[in-house]
């Protein structure tokens, strides 16, 4: 499991370096997804299968989908078609694909070799994590729900004013 940790750490650092240095936002997103998957493997090795799953679902799934949506919204028009033809060249996606292939090989190694291998400490089961979340940390969970509600209302407010102002200037000011 040590080698799995170090290979995943190298992939995470390499892909994060590629994220910071890319010029194209979609290329950076591809590398960031690879980086988050590598961090998920590291979390699994460190004994947190539940947080590894959450990392894949929430970070690499939901948050990256939000970024993709924003990039889609910002690139309306002929430029998008030209850029899409440019983005689909093999030189752009072969790097993230290779790094993801290494991560997939690690996953196969973990599943085939040692099913419950943990590199350091003990494995925290989802039941223990849930018991801790709804035991002494229940106030924090409530505060997290309030934070998410505030983010929902704030994002809705900002997005709504943007659309109304784009459609009609005076109408947006009246509604405000």
């Amino acid at each position, binding site marked *: 499991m040590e080698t799995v940790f170090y290979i995943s750490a190298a992939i995470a650092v390499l892909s994060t370096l590629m994220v910071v240095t890319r010029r194209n936002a979609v290329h950076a997103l591809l590398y960031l997804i690879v*980086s988050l998957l590598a961090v998920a493997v590291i979390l699994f090795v460190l004994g947190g299968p539940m947080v590894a799953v959450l990392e894949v679902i929430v970070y690499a799934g939901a*948050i990256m989908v939000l970024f993709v949506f924003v990039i889609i919204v910002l690139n309306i028009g002929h430029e998008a078609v030209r850029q899409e033809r440019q983005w689909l060249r093999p030189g752009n996606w072969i790097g993230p694909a290779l790094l993801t292939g290494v991560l997939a090989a690690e996953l196969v190694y973990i599943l085939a070799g040692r099913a419950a291998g943990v590199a350091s400490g003990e494995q925290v089961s989802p039941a223990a994590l849930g018991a801790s979340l709804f035991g002494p940390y229940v106030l924090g969970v409530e505060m997290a729900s309030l*934070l998410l509600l505030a983010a929902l209302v704030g994002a809705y407010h900002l997005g709504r004013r943007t659309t109304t102002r784009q459609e009609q200037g005076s109408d947006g000011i009246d509604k405000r």
Partner: protein
Amino acid sequence: MASISVESGLILSAVLFGLGLIGVLARRNILFILLSIEIMLNAAGLAFVVAGSAWQDESPTVAASAAATEPTTSVGGYKESTVPQADGQVMFFFVLTMAAAEVSVGLALVLRMHSQAGSLDADALSRMRG
């Protein structure tokens, strides 16, 4: 069982955090700044999990002494045996929630900035000084 030292995990977390900080400082596209903030938050959460798994190694003695001193209630004993193991991952959970909230508001601001300023350059908003 092979063990990963705490230092290597924390060094990895620090390197990822530093890369994110470089991204925030060097890039001027606001979308890349948000991506770099995500990298930094993720590195902080990784540091929490690493520290949690390191602290876990010493926790069985604490849990055993707590169970030895107070073995009466089963609920208390259950809490004492499960609570010290999941603290770092609970903090990772909170960091994850905070990152989701932050990125939703941040991307709404990016859309609004694109509709008003017409570009994603962070320097385009420098008229607000003074």
